[in-house]
């Protein structure tokens, strides 16, 4: 049946109605971008022993980008002519799956979304779960090119492989069910195994497992949980899912690197391999002490993630509590707390951190405290505004009318309804915290210089900018990617949690 769109409005509507179209264009453009960066690097940067490999990977990115764009064209024509995507075009999605071999996740995701006509959120999450594990496995596998590997390397790799197999099986199982289908009870086992694989740090596996359990228990009695609803919305935005994928990948890598990466390569000096160019043995080269930059950056992820999360969680709890008390009790309590926090708010975060570190000395503990204190007022203000809004609602009045105590009302009835904006804010500030941490380390005020933290690695590398620029470029790229991932995730979460859009 041919049903051609006539007006511009209808064309726009049809194109917008299919998420596959949007995903295909995004994946195609991103692949082209990465291909361009890789190929330009291969051509321009001279003396790089990686040139042939870069050319091959860049070429294959370009190849898959072209396939993706051809499919994109067919999807567009389908939508304009029929108003839906035909099964033949959907089957062409299988062509995109081999892109996993060159780690082109954009195209793989677009392909996996194209193959199935009606996808459940669980299916989408399962794809990302598997991708996260596969990426970690691939990056850890680069260690086999080194002269020696860590003692537990094989165990770690085997664990990752087992996880990947379980996740693949659950992906295939979940692919059979549609969003509205009831899940059978034996899916509990799948959910439990998925949550167990989350021990590697795979955030998606954890969320998927929790979502499955909630869904099985629900059995269609209600319209679904709030948690599931948020993920349903989040799964529709490819950029925020890509952000979460990178975060999950990095967390998994940070955890499994304890088994799969040899810390001596990152920490011990090796004067026979000083300032080496990138090679198979040292994928990102070595620094002025002959330490492998690749291992150092992977190990630095632990510190950066830890400091980033802690400097978000601590002010979240303290600021949240102060803001909640201030907003709930009002009057003098409110005045005193908020005026005191105004003083903190008047000093810029970095400057306050510098003053605190000047007083108590540089170190990871002082750094966390210094950065946490600076962001307490922001959280307190957001929380106070939320609590003020929620405490004027009828159900809170009802709770106080039946004689509930203030503490019960505050913690049981008000706080759970003010979490959403706090989550969005904290996702967005983890990125800022990562930048602040590395900035302070760069100034020599952060993490102790011997610990491989991204800012420290960059500081060392900046001295060799003229001769060995890659020592400063790669850790910077790691910081940018992590911050970008958190920002994308935060933006997506804000859209998913925004009551205006509900």
């Amino acid at each position, binding site marked *: 049946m041919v049903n051609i769109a006539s007006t511009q409005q209808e064309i726009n509507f049809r194109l917008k109605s299919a998420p596959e179209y949007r995903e295909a264009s995004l994946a195609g453009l991103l692949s082209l971008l990465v291909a361009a960066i890789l190929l330009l690097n291969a051509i321009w940067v001279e003396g790089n022993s990686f040139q042939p490999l870069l050319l091959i990977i860049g070429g294959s990115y370009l190849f898959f980008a072209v396939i993706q764009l051809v499919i994109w064209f067919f999807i567009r024509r389908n939508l304009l002519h029929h108003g839906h995507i035909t099964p033949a075009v959907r089957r062409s999605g299988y062509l995109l799956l081999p892109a996993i071999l060159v780690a082109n996740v954009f195209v793989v995701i677009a392909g996996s979304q194209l193959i199935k006509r009606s996808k459940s959120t669980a299916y989408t999450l399962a794809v990302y779960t598997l991708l996260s594990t596969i990426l970690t496995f691939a990056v850890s596998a680069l260690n086999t090119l080194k002269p020696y590997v860590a003692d537990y390397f094989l165990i770690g790799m085997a664990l990752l492989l087992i996880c990947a197999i379980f996740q693949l099986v659950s992906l295939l199982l979940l692919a059979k069910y549609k969003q509205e289908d009831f899940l059978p009870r034996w899916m509990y086992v799948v959910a439990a195994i998925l949550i167990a694989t989350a021990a590697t740090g795979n955030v998606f596996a954890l969320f998927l497992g929790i979502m499955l359990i909630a869904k099985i228990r629900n059995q269609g009695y209600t319209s679904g949980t709030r948690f599931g609803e948020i993920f349903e919305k989040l799964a529709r935005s490819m950029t925020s899912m890509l952000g979460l994928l990178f975060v999950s990948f990095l967390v998994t890598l940070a955890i499994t690197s304890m088994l799969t990466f040899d810390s001596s390569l990152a920490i011990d000096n090796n004067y026979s391999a000083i300032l080496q160019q990138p090679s198979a043995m040292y994928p990102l080269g070595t620094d002025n002490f002959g330490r492998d930059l690749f291992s150092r950056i992977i190990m630095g992820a632990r510190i950066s993630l830890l400091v980033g999360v802690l400097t978000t969680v601590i002010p979240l709890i303290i600021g949240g509590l102060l803001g909640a008390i201030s907003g709930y009790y009002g009057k003098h309590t409110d005045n005193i707390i908020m005026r005191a926090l105004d003083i903190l708010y008047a000093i810029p975060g970095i400057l306050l951190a510098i003053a605190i570190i000047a*007083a108590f000395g540089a170190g990871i503990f002082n750094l966390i405290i210094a950065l946490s204190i600076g962001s307490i007022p922001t959280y307190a203000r957001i929380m106070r505004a939320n609590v003020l809004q929620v405490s004027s609602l009828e159900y809170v009045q009802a709770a106080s009318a039946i004689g509930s105590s203030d503490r019960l009302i505050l913690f049981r009835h008000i706080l759970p309804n003010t979490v959403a904006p706090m989550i969005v804010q904290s996702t967005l500030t983890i990125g800022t915290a990562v930048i602040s941490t590395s900035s302070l380390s*760069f100034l020599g005020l952060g993490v102790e210089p011997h610990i491989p933290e991204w800012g420290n690695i960059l500081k060392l590398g900046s001295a060799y900018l003229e001769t060995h620029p890659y020592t400063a470029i790669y850790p*910077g790229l790691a910081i940018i990617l992590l911050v970008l991932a958190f920002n994308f995730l935060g933006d997506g979460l804000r859209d998913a949690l925004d009551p205006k859009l509900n």
Partner: protein
Amino acid sequence: MTGQVALHQDSIADKAVSIYKKMLRHPTYKWLLLILGLPLSIILIPIFRYFSAKSGYARLKESTVQELTQSGLPAQLLQEAREQVRRKHQFFGQSVNEKALEQEAKAWADTKFSNAVDQRMQLQQHTAEPFMFEHAFQWFIMHPARFALSIIIAFPMYVLMLIYSNPYVKYIIERLVMAVLVILGVSVLVFTILYISPMDPASNLLGETATEEQIASFNQLYGLDQPYLVQLWDTLKGIVTLDLGKSFAGNELVSTAIANKFPITLTLTVIATILAVIIALPIGIISATKPNSVFDYSFMFIALLGLSIPNFWLGLIFILNFSIKLSWLPATYSPGNWMSAIMPVVVLGTALMASVARMTRSSMLEVIHEDYIITARAKGLKSRHVLWKHAIGNALIPIITVIGLLFGSMLGGAAVTEKVFNISGIGSYIVDRQFIPDIPSIMGGVVYTAITISIVNVIVDLLYAFLDPRIRSKMKQY
């Protein structure tokens, strides 16, 4: 002629009374009023006592209370209240001891009794009003001679009343007082942090070999042996009089050093802010007018990228490309050479540019979907006219606040950029001094930066209070 003067005076006195009455209702202003006009207040108190004892209201109230007490109302109310309180606790299943129960019942009965008295007095249709403190004031200034006397003895109070009478002046003064209090708090906080520091600047500066006497004389020279409050007072005095003494290292005057370095940082950040706003505003506006277009997506992606790039990395990449590889721009900043300022300004402005572009877009999108924009469209205005005349003004309001806040964090975070480009600004000055730690230098650097930021925020607040008609009308109301 005399009649006119009297009339004129009358209206001033009336106005003064109404302002006085309003201010007495406000908890903070009440005390300020009484204290600033202390001589007058002292005179007014016996007058108030005398009149309120004489007024019919007090006597009437007394007789009503007596009457009701004789009728046995209090005992009856207490009995009722006791029963109600007991039933209430029974309903909630709470167990309360007798004493607390009695207390609650008593409080309840008292409130009810005073309500009953009021009601009774209203029923008797006596129009007598209670004699309040402002009536004493009114009586006092009714006579021109006493009015003149009151102005002489309580001049500060009248100045305060004058400020209070104009909502704009009142808002400005209140905002300034808040800023001064915040700056005071910042000074105390930073000083306290540095005071409780376990670091010992004396032994850090004099070296391992320093004797006890040398350290003691160092501490005495810089007043470090004084108690906390004395040091705090000296520091606060130093901040106000722009004289923080000499720095520990280099033996230079802290204020001179800061006066030399601060303008460099301020100039760079101001230029960066202006540049960023000029670039970011059009981008945000165009993105909002064409949401979800290729232009929108790509610029918002670039903005998010700009938010995610650490300043120092961007600076290093700029130096690598434009100074080392291409040799277009000098790698280090020198105040006279404007070419050398290009890279620092761009690096400083990146994050602000990104935030402002994103903020402009979301603020514009919100405004565009308001009803009044639809009305403007419906009455047939051109979309360009709607955009520039009706939408942008309102969309700008939150953006101005954001720019003010971001300017502050830019000024505070300038240390990193200054280190990369070797700029001798205030940020790198503080960082250089923190290893010792050179307390006067850090103190001065942090506090004067915070003061500048507070001033900028005050200006932004005032600006936007006068630009936004909604805030103007709110200001008049309270």
